[in-house]
């Protein structure tokens, strides 16, 4: 049987990994996703299963107990998982970004301290830039760390922490103006701190509070929280990479691979929406024939499939570019932009195919319809992606003379 969104040139191991994940998704995620989502319940059994499988260590290098797989393998795994339920891929995404930031920018001590435990899923990562007053405009953050002897004292409020409650290691971006030279740019006045904490809500360690979950339209099950620092004391060893002033660049690097991840998620969600639409269109009969035989519906299916395929190939291309060691900000931005916009359109088309039933909570497409918009916002809004793309274009196509 031909299937959409296939990837050429995968190794046998990559294929076996994807097959295992797909089986897991079909048997353990899809059958329970709707009920868990409606109850806004954390998918503990699913997360435990993925932990056992080794998903949390997929990209962590072998010397730290992981599998050392590529960004492409990771993205394709995320795509499969999001096909089952986007929230589950959200549980993994922040973990992966923090692990990636540690791999790229951490000191050897920090890597030794965290990566082996992250590879097993014992330590689970989250990261935090946004605040109540700013998101995409990262330089507008106000949370601050002030040095006090060998320690730093952190104060401020963070917002939109995916896995804020369930994670045990949070990478937090704060201002450290006191550590920068006079006249430095704002981008050199930001530092990433690594905060270890127990999971849960309330004051989880002295000076650090995770208030309750933020109620959301979709993307349920996974806990999205605020984070409040009130004279939180950390050591200088908790600075990612050991040196203050590099936080902005570290975060941007993390978000860049996160973008491929969000693109992959959008691909998975769109694939599922297509599967549901094409299935329903062959079951539902109107005017004496299955609605798939009405041209209006058939054309819709054709559009959906074309978008699913295009988004997938673009996502794969951007992941491969990063894996080859090249800069991929342009491609990642394009992939994230295209995949999330197409995802919204494919989901809406599938929703229309479902007619009245699509509006019923009994049908999976209702959930997808509430989930798709998150992808247009998270990890850089569509408009931010367009800014990134345009900026790169004007660099590469700069008029001479």
């Amino acid at each position: 049987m031909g299937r959409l969104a296939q990837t050429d040139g995968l190794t046998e191991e990559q294929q076996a990994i994807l097959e295992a994940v797909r089986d897991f998704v079909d048997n353990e995620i899809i059958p329970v996703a709707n009920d868990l989502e409606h109850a806004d319940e954390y998918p503990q059994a699913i997360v435990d299963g993925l932990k056992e499988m080794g998903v949390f260590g997929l990209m962590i290098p072998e010397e730290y107990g992981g599998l050392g797989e590529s960004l492409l393998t990771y993205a394709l795994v995320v795509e499969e998982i999001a096909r089952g339920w986007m929230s589950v891929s959200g549980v993994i995404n922040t973990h992966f970004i923090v692990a990636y930031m540690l791999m790229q920018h951490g000191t050897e001590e920090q890597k030794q301290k965290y990566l082996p435990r992250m590879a097993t899923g014992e330590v689970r990562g989250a990261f935090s830039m946004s605040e109540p007053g700013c998101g995409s405009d990262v330089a507008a953050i106000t949370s601050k760390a002030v040095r006090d002897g060998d320690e730093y004292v952190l104060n401020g409020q963070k917002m939109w922490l995916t896995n804020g409650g369930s994670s045990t290691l949070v990478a937090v971006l704060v201002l450290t103006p006191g550590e920068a030279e006079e006249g430095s740019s704002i981008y050199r006045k930001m530092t990433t701190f690594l905060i270890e904490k127990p999971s849960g809500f309330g004051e989880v360690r002295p000076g650090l509070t995770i208030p309750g979950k933020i109620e959301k339209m979709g993307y349920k099950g996974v806990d999205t929280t605020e984070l409040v620092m009130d004279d939180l004391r950390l050591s200088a060893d908790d600075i990612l990479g050991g040196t203050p002033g590099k936080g902005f660049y570290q975060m941007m690097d993390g978000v860049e691979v996160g973008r491929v991840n969000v693109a992959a998620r959008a691909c998975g969600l769109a694939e599922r929406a297509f599967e549901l639409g094409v299935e329903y269109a062959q079951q539902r009969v109107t005017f004496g024939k299955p609605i798939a035989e009405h041209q209006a519906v058939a054309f819709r299916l054709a559009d959906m499939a074309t978008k699913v395929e295009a988004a997938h190939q673009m996502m794969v291309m951007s992941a491969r570019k990063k894996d080859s060691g090249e800069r991929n900000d342009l491609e990642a931005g394009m992939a994230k932009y295209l995949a999330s916009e197409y995802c919204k359109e494919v989901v809406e088309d599938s929703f229309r195919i479902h007619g009245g039933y699509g509006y019923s909570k009994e049908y999976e497409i209702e959930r997808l319809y509430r989930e798709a918009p998150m992808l247009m916002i998270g990890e850089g809004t569509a408009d931010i992606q367009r800014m990134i793309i345009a900026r790169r274009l004007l660099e590469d196509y700069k008029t001479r003379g």
Partner: protein
Amino acid sequence: MKIAVCVKQVPDTWAEKKLREGDALLDRESADGVMNELDEYAVEEALQLIEAHGGEVVIVSMGPDRAAETVRKALSMGADAGIHVVDDSLAGSDAIATSAVIAKAVEGKDFDLVIFGSESTDARMSVVPAMVAERLGWAQVTFAQKVEVAGGDITIERATENGSDTVTAAMPAVVSVVEKINEPRYPSFKGIMAAKKKPVDTIAVADLGLEAAAVGTGAAWSAVNDFAARPPKAAGTVVTDEGDGGVKVATFLAEQKFI
């Protein structure tokens, strides 16, 4: 202990299965090949026994080249080694020939148990385990929903229509398992990576000391003379309720001998 688990690659459970024009054999190319579902339970049971008692699990499969994928999958679940019997002469083998091949492949290798899934989703005969036991001269304990091993004996709960029987036999023995027995694990990513380094012995019919003429379509005790596609589902009868709907439904059910 040393356990052999026999696995078979079958067409994807949900795929439409077709016979080939010409030789009337199952068209294995038309659908994705997957491990026969019940064989996953057999692998799982062997792994659990080894985890409890120590030892080694060897996967045995007879099938075309691509059946190697199924052997590899069982290895990625945690089995230690594989034996894959590949031979063009095997095409069209019936259960009797298959049992001869498997018996030859496992005999003389100090296995304590040979474990099978109780049936395959493509042939669904459930006879190969019994035939292999007969050929080896070992006890057969089939349709197991629970297995325990102690003091050289194997004790199973054999699933029956009315409940279960407890059956004990001395090892070596042949076991077949039903899906109630356990919950097969998913291969872990580490297991997948490790599987590629595990030894798989690919052998031909002649290596087993069997004649090519003893297996395959020519040696089969049954032959397919003709076949036809399943007819499309007939349109149902619409019963209009004119106050006598209940009677009409009851009449229909009685005609079909449901009541």
